[in-house]
């Protein structure tokens, strides 16, 4: 159980960071919707879990937050990547690619033989 949660935590953080990298400053709701859309609704994000993750990233200094006004005139808290955050996205993305590449090598031969 715990291991699974950790993986999810790690990947959620990467998704958040990547989303902010692509979209620029964004509020929590927007990030959640964006993750949902990007995953083509394969991932149903429980929006509640997002906020502790955002707080953790902020405490680690990868993102910063400030209150702003949304397109349709609602007050919302906007998150933006910091310099450390940008570096972290690159790093984590590279690591993730390497992990998936390794995993893929395990999975591919099976596909070829079948």
């Amino acid at each position, binding site marked *: 159980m715990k291991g699974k949660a950790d993986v999810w935590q790690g990947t959620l953080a990467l998704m958040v960071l990547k989303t902010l990298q692509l979209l620029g400053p964004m509020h929590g709701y927007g990030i959640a919707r964006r993750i949902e859309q990007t995953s083509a609704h394969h991932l149903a994000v429980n929006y509640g879990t997002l906020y502790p993750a955002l707080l953790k990233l902020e405490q680690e200094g990868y993102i910063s937050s400030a209150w702003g006004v949304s397109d349709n005139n609602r007050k919302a*808290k906007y998150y933006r990547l910091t310099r450390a955050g940008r570096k972290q996205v690159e790093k984590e993305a590279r690591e993730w690619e390497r992990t998936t590449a390794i995993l893929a090598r395990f999975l591919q031969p099976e596909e070829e033989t079948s």
Partner: protein
Amino acid sequence: MRRWRALLRRLRQTLSPRPDDFAAEIDSHLQLHIDDNLRAGMTPDQARRHALICLGGPAQTRERYRDQHGIPALDALRQDLVSAVRVLRKNPGFAATAILTLALGIGANSAIFSLVNATLLRPLPFKDPDRLVMIFATDGRRSDRFDSATYPDFVDWRNQNRTFESMAAFAGHRSTLSVGDQTALIQGKRVTPNFFDVLGVAPVLGRGFRPEDQEPAANRVVILSDGFWKRHFGGAPDALGRTIRISRADGNHVAQGFDELHTVVGIMPPWFHIDQPDEEQYYVPLPIDPSRGHGFLRVVGRLRWGVTLPHATADLAAIADRLARLYPRTNLTVGTHLMGVNDALARHIKPGLLIMLGVVGIVLLIACANVAGLMLARGATRQRELAIRSALGAGRGRLVRQLLVESVLIALIGGGLGLIAADWTARALAAVVAMQFRVPRIDAASTDVSVLAFTVIASVATGICFGAFPAFASTSPGLNDALRDSGRSATGTRAPQLRRALVIVEIALALVLLAGGGMLLRALLAMRATPPGFDARNMLVIDLWLPSPRFAQLQDRASFFAAALERLRGLSGVKTAAFVADLPLSGATDSESFHIVGRPDPSPDRPFNAGFNIASGGYFRTMGTPVREGRDFLDSDGPATPDVAIVNESAARAWWPDGSPLGQQILLPITRTTSQLLTIVGVAADVRHVGLAVPPRREVFVHSMQSQLSWAHFVLAVRTSSAPNALADSVRAILRDADANVPIARIASGDDVVARSMTEPRLYTFLVGTFALLAGALAAIGLYGLMSYSVSQLSHEIGIRVALGASRADIFRLVLAQGVALAAVGSVIGLACGLAATRALVGLIKGVRPNDPVTLIVVTGVLLGVALLASYVPARRAARVDPAVALRAE
């Protein structure tokens, strides 16, 4: 790195919580979602419902957010602390009782620990003090483990050992210093040239000693203490190279040639001293002394790296064995005894301190038991609160933790108060103890980091100790029953039994302390009832020194005695006056070996030995000591008349059990070649010399106008017709008139001398007694608390009994009997432990009798009486219970 940064932020949030904007953020999240949903065509209700579902449970989200925000464990601790503070504030009576009780218990421990810390624990300010060891000679004949070493023995130890890097010796040195027309007595140290090197300390100015400084022909040099330098040279650096005249005052033995100009070659740093600072104002090189029979040195050595104390002990024991074979005449019974330098310097006070540490430990235990009892009682009344919290989801661990936080908080507050009291107490105690024991550095007893750490650890341990029992007892798994019950029967579980057990333990411990205090008190009272053998009232005593070259010859001493006595006897208010070398009860004793004419020595190598004393004419009359046979010394005894001696009753009984010693002669060796023949002319009553509890020794008195012994220390005893202290100034003036060069060390009354001989027992009796009374009071309070609590809890049952026909006297007796039964059980246990524990007090002061039945009976009786008193009030209250009211309170 990032993780640390996050942890720091969370810690900051925990320590000083700032409001977060989480609610606003969630609100805005919902608004944005609802807006989207509305745009997608939902009704407002649907839009809101959908948004809330997607968000998940807001409470759980909030919780997780908060956990991420701070550090949950610490947050909980903070909450517990806040609620503990609230609980204590709401129950000021309980809080004050518990805190004060613990403040007493912890404060007592901190105070005694301060002394232990200053004397035994704090490292000495020397280089690598762990490797410094003091080496004492031992004397198998006198079973003395702390004897002085002789110079040749020291040299052999130093040269033949394989375990010491270096070894130095030192001895005391008294001298007179003339400044203007005043002659002052000062004390310094004679040290081997390497003394400062062994300790790893260098002079701040000038140089240390060199090996050639020890040669007899060398120029006389002196190194000054910082204090001496500041006092006499104003701290000027040009003191180096100046000369001072040091006249050796204690010419008891050998070593001439100190009445010379000494050149100042060095100044020591202000913190440097190995004994009391006033006993080492200067340092001079120790002259070589060839006698293997004359021990006067203390030896300190620095162990080689990696050598342990047992290793070095074995090494020196082998050397001592070799010396015993080589020099059987002097060294047959001489061994060695090694001790770490800290322990060695504090050895007089160490057993006392350890016992006091035990005593205050017991007081703290009783305080703990008392507060634990209070907590248990409160736990019972808090059952409903705890049950509700448990029903709302608090686990047992959480409840126990909260109760423990409460008790640790109480203990810490108590410890803080105790520390303030302890700081003051320790300083006061140190001042008293320093006077009595001359332990170096005890005056430095103060609250430092170690004492602070000790107090904090003691407080936390105390808090857990008295908190754990009640916390587990009052959060027992059956807690939910408390919600269903009316609250009365919730106390019917284990808590009351625990409280009874605690009170029994308290009474047992208190009895042990009271028994100890009682035995010390009994010994002290016995001491006070012991006649010292002389009349101390209306007596003035003046300590003085006769410096060596000026008074080296008998006629010089005799003419000073005669001049002073003649002038004194003319002073109004003076009845009689006399000189004596060692005043009774002053602690000073000197012994000499002698032969009895016409009788063989006890063994070929060992002649007779007795305490020797020198006294002037009229000494026994002046002291009020009866002369049993023969006569007192007369003023007419002198150089021209036969040399006379007076023995005391103990000596007469020992050596002339069947006849009179009068007319018998003894031969006292003075130097290698000369002796003095003394004829016994009187037998005087015994007096106590070392202390009131120490049996009198055998003693021989020699007349001061005839004695060839060149002792330098004398006491002038003046019998006055009124208050002695009023005469102090006139007596001082007369002595200066008789000889301006005689330094006066001290003026005191006879009563002071007797009182001072009892300072040590009085100090211990006072300390143990005070703590014992404190312990007794705490135990009584504990018993009272338990009894009145159980009466209030049992008022229903009492009501039923009364309704069924029990008389008020029955109820009264019932409650009283319960209290006394508890005390009795505690006393029996206490007596069993006390018999073992009080044996530790025997070595503390002379005259303590362990297992003294009278003390044990009296103490037990007093304690039971107090228990009766403590149960009396609750019993009366129980007897007054109105059955109608008690039963209606249902």
